[in-house]
């Protein structure tokens, strides 16, 4: 079946602009995650959605970052007033959501460049 898809694949924006990144998880997966991958760094957890529960926003680096998940499926990560340090690859992953220690399936990522 189809994997996790993300759009756009690349985004170039000017400092101060807002951007929206989209994630379509695998059908039937109730858990959805956003990560940020900076050059030479590991994957930094941003936010986690599980079903209808309140999201775990503990990884969001500032109040310029927000995310929502509509209808338990598609998710949008919004970065307001982008800064150059926001340049990174933003990865979305989904999993079945049946318990801890389960496989997370990643999308190809959105490469964000803030000029």
């Amino acid at each position, binding site marked *: 079946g189809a994997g996790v898809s993300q759009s756009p694949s690349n985004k170039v924006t000017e400092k101060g602009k807002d951007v929206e990144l989209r994630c379509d998880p695998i059908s039937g997966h109730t858990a959805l995650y956003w990560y940020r991958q900076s050059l*030479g760094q*590991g*994957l930094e*957890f941003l936010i986690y959605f599980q079903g209808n529960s309140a999201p775990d926003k503990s990884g969001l680096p500032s109040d310029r970052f927000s995310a929502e998940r509509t209808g338990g499926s598609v998710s949008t990560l919004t970065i307001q007033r982008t800064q150059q340090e926001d340049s990174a690859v933003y990865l979305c992953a989904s999993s079945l959501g049946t318990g*801890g*220690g389960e496989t997370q399936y990643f999308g190809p*990522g959105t490469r964000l460049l803030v000029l």
Partner: protein
Amino acid sequence: QQQVKQSPQSLIVQKGGISIINCAYENTAFDYFPWYQQFPGKGPALLIAIRPDVSEKKEGRFTISFNKSAKQFSLHIMDSQPGDSATYFCAASIAGTYKYIFGTGTRLKVLA
């Protein structure tokens, strides 16, 4: 205490050789340790994973060795091939949670 320390940062191995990547952690509550493989332009994909009740898990040419007392685990790639050239991430998660803590990654290059 939430960190997972990964080494080396980069690794060059001859075709047919053994690639070894190491990770260490502090939090004894971690109970699931996956390894992810990432090719350029792609998202990471699960390669192999282990729980602390076993000391070794092997899948094909890939083996995880786990040392619970030392709080270390490693990935061994036997008979390394140029197609194995990728970035490898170790990770750890805590029982009952879904949050993974990732290492900083190892860029592996296997020379033909």
